[in-house]
């Protein structure tokens, strides 16, 4: 790539970070950002949620998936969006009302057991790593394309840069990166969508007609079934997408940056509108990339189509738009990764090291050091995995994180809020069943084993046929929680009464 693009890219990334820095500084004077009475309005928080959500997967992954596979790519957009209804109807308000900050804290509102904490931390770390891999693959492909270097060098550079950012920069500005980035990403997407539409003479019907002829798939491009030929695999993916969001630690955390359930509610509404509009526009990104960049160039830049959006920006708006889009995508990844690494590291430092290894006696300094090592560990492991995942679409990789969240976390969250009889043993078995089945099934799935060399990490016949195991692992999470509860005698009805009253009325002691 040429020097203009690189200079512009670096300038825009830098500008985003500077704006973020000042915005974050300004809010810190008006009130502590993370406390319950904090300064975020529902509208701002909604944008931050949208920002968290519109990660590399949404922007790079979905655009690529639609460009290459037409309707099947759009499945992601639908799943990610409907997931908000699950969050809004079942989880957001009760969680906010219980006033807890992490998944482990929430479960601890009902149970005190240390084991629950350990397993909740473990599932958080697993989700974080899957999510990280997706972000690193996206960032690696982006840097590879921009700077014209090998993929593995790009991943290493990005990975090391991000680790340094997290270790020395910290979390303070992350919410504002998300808000600003969400706005920039929406602007970029609207501009590109408008340009695509202009190319089709503002005729949406005409656009669909034309899409029947411009790709190698012909009329099939507009029909479902191009990518997902196994019905159960499609349904399994859709299950992971719709239930996963409600179990994602970094999304749930966002409901605590506002002062009450009402604000939490209004922030979900804002997020739903922003994210919904964005996902409608992914059609234009995908179609545009397929029509004006072409499959060959898209797959040449990245086999899984992750570079469709930046390439489309270049085709339509030249270097300036390309740099802008790439820079926003990069800032997105940086922000998401920072949040992810920190939630993984704090799960380790706070829950496993602080509460279990040191039995609550660790000093702040010891915990900080543990958190730093944990960040390093999470980053190194994710970088290593990302090196093998180049050929995977980032939206798909994220769907695996969603699957773990849906299998290990969601059943326990729902049981904790709604099931009277639920107990500690049930929480432990539920999370373990969901987590282990998801991990084991992924590791024997076609993602890891492929008969053709180079298509997956190992060569061989996959033992489990589905690429996304949610269809099996989510029910196992629910069954595990049920069996554990039924087969152990303990039940704490007064504790449930407390949780129920607090969750439903918003009362605080």
């Amino acid at each position, binding site marked *: 790539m040429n020097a203009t693009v690189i200079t512009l890219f670096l300038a825009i990334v830098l500008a985003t970070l500077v704006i973020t820095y000042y915005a974050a500084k300004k809010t810190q004077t008006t009130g502590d950002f993370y406390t319950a009475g904090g300064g975020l309005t529902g509208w701002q928080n909604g944008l931050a949620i949208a920002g968290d959500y519109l990660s590399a997967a949404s922007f790079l992954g979905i655009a690529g998936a639609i460009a290459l596979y037409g309707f099947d790519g*759009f499945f992601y957009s639908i799943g990610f969006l409907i997931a908000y209804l699950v969050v*809004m109807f079942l989880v957001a308000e009760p969680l906010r009302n219980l006033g807890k900050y992490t998944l482990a804290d929430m479960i601890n509102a009902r149970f005190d057991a240390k084991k629950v904490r350990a397993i909740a931390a473990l599932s958080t770390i697993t989700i974080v790593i899957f999510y990280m891999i997706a972000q690193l693959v996206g960032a690696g492909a982006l840097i590879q394309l921009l700077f014209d270097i090998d993929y593995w060098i790009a991943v290493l550079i990005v990975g090391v840069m991000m680790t340094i950012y997290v270790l020395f920069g910290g979390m303070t500005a992350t919410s504002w990166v998300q808000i600003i980035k969400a706005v920039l990403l929406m602007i970029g997407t609207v501009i590109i969508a408008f340009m695509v539409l202009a190319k089709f003479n503002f005729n949406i019907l005409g656009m669909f*007609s034309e*899409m029947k002829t411009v790709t190698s798939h012909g009329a099939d491009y*507009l029909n479902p079934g191009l990518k997902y030929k196994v019905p159960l695999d499609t349904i399994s993916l859709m299950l992971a997408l*719709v239930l996963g969001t409600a179990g994602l630690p970094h999304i749930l955390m966002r409901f605590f940056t506002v002062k009450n359930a009402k604000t939490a509610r209004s922030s979900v509404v804002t997020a739903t509108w922003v994210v919904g509009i964005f996902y409608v526009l992914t059609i234009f990104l995908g179609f545009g990339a397929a029509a004006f960049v072409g499959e060959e160039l898209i797959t040449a830049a990245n086999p899984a189509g992750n570079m469709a959006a930046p390439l489309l920006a270049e085709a339509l708006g030249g270097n300036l738009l390309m740099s802008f889009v790439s820079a926003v995508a990069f800032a997105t990844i940086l922000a998401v990764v920072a949040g992810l690494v920190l939630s993984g590291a704090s799960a380790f430092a706070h829950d496993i090291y602080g509460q279990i290894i040191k039995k609550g006696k660790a000093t702040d300094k010891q915990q900080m050091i543990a958190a730093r090592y944990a960040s390093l560990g999470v980053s190194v492991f994710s970088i290593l995995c990302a090196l093998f995942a180049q050929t995977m679409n980032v939206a798909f990789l994220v769907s695996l994180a969603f699957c773990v969240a849906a299998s290990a976390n969601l059943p326990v969250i729902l049981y904790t809020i709604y099931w009277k009889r639920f107990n500690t043993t049930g929480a432990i078995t539920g999370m373990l069943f969901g987590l282990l089945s998801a991990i084991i099934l992924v590791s024997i799935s076609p993602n890891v084993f492929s008969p053709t060399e180079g298509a997956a990490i190992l060569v061989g016949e996959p033992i489990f046929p589905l690429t996304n195991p949610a269809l099996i692992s989510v029910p196992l999470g629910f069954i595990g929680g049920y069996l554990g509860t039924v087969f152990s005698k303990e039940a704490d009805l007064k504790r449930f009464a407390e949780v129920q*009253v607090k969750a439903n009325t918003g009362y605080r002691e």
Partner: protein
Amino acid sequence: MNVGSDYKELSYQETKPDYQQVAESASFKDLITRRKRFIIPLTIFFLVFYFLLPVLTSYTTFLNTPAIGDISWAWLFAFAQFIMTWVFCIIYVKKSAQFDRQSDEIIEDQLGGERE
């Protein structure tokens, strides 16, 4: 109900509100019933509506017939999911305002007095 009376004694000592009493009260039960009556049917509806799309596209092909010009029913179904999300979003906010009022009453009548 043994557990309940045990807890009552305990709660006086800890000056904690008696949550079980609140949970048993008619007004709280009414709130829970109304909530359930609102949330459960809508949740079932949107999940069924959602899964209907991949099920129909995986096992049948009739959604591939054109509806408007070259836009097939599958795309229209997909767009309908977006519209459903927004509509449900609005309904939820409207309905929640009612629940808010009910919750406030419960807090005021039953929990307020026991706060410090």
